[in-house]
């Protein structure tokens, strides 16, 4: 039933977040993304076991069913839109995708790293990022120097905190 599916998926996601934070805090993880995907595989099994082991009666309660009735389509719609929007950003902005496309269009000739550098200028990408950040008001340019605006400073500090919290490099 849809009420059970909705609640079980949120419970599974909650478990994933908890385990992710515990594992990354307690263990010294070398392959971050591989570990995350292994955890997702485990939670997938947990999700299915939970779905088939829980009884339907609890989920038929009036208040819960009303909550799910309104939340389910909103969540699903937002997830679909987010997925589409983010997919577009990845296709457009990803360095790896751009390189793969350039190599693909070279055909059987292939490309050396020097030829890739001629096709795709990462220095220009960095200039573009700086233009973007100036456009959205995160940094400002004074003479030849770039400085954080108040918004940029808050952004930097939030990200620094999150990097420290998730044990990611680059915060200190």
């Amino acid at each position, binding site marked *: *039933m*849809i009420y*059970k*599916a*909705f609640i079980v*998926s*949120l419970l599974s*996601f909650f478990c*994933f977040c908890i385990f992710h934070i515990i594992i990354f805090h307690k263990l010294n993880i070398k392959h*971050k993304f591989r570990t995350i995907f292994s955890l997702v595989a485990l*939670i*997938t099994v947990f*999700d*299915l076991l939970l*779905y088939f082991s829980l009884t339907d009666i609890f989920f038929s309660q009036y208040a819960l069913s009303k909550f799910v*009735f309104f939340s389910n389509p909103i969540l*699903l719609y937002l*997830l*679909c*839109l*987010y997925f*589409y*929007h983010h997919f*577009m950003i990845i*296709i*457009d902005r990803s*360095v*790896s*995708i*751009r*390189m*793969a*496309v350039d190599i*693909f*269009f070279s055909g*059987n*000739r*292939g490309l*050396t*790293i020097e030829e890739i550098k001629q096709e795709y200028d*990462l220095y220009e*990408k*960095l200039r573009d*990022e700086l233009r*973007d*950040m100036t456009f*959205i008001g995160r940094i400002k340019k*004074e003479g030849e*120097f*770039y*400085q*954080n605006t108040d918004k*940029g*400073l808050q*952004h*930097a500090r939030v*990200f620094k905190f999150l*990097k420290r919290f998730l044990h*990611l490099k680059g*915060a200190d």
Partner: protein
Amino acid sequence: MAQILTVISLFIFVIVGHWTYVSMKKNIPFFESDGQKLLYHTKLIAFFAVLAGFFYFFLYSFFAKWCRDGMIDNDWWLDGFYAGYSLVLFYGCFFIYLSIYYMIDRSVSSKMMIEIDKSANKKMTYNDLIAVYDVEKKYQEALDDLVYGGLIKKTDDKYYCTYKGAIIARLASLFKKGLKLGRGG
């Protein structure tokens, strides 16, 4: 079931609307930066998403009637379908989590803002930022990631697309052409 079918229909409407508008429009504005291009497409997607939302109740009542009249709600596979649906929702939430995690870990913009904040005078030149970002290393890292992911292979000094890489590159190229995104990267 009716809710899921309704949302999927609305989502298809958004994609078709977005693609049709962009491909039909002759004069796509010139974007000075990727941020402006992203904002343009975000506004378009949001417009079609809100427009589609107005049809929710109409479509929902149609699908609810269809599900009641048909065999769908009585079918034996329905339980399996909802079990799969709970996985779809879980993967959806996970995708959002992963993209935020990835942004915190890899975002170039955030890295630059953090570096500016860490610098002694709280300001850096373009050359300082280039040195921190290490562009030369970035090329090699991106290529190594592609080789590791099996999208390209290295023979002698040259990189070639694998079968898997060719499919992804073709799809990406189609998407970029369809939405007039330019070469991107």
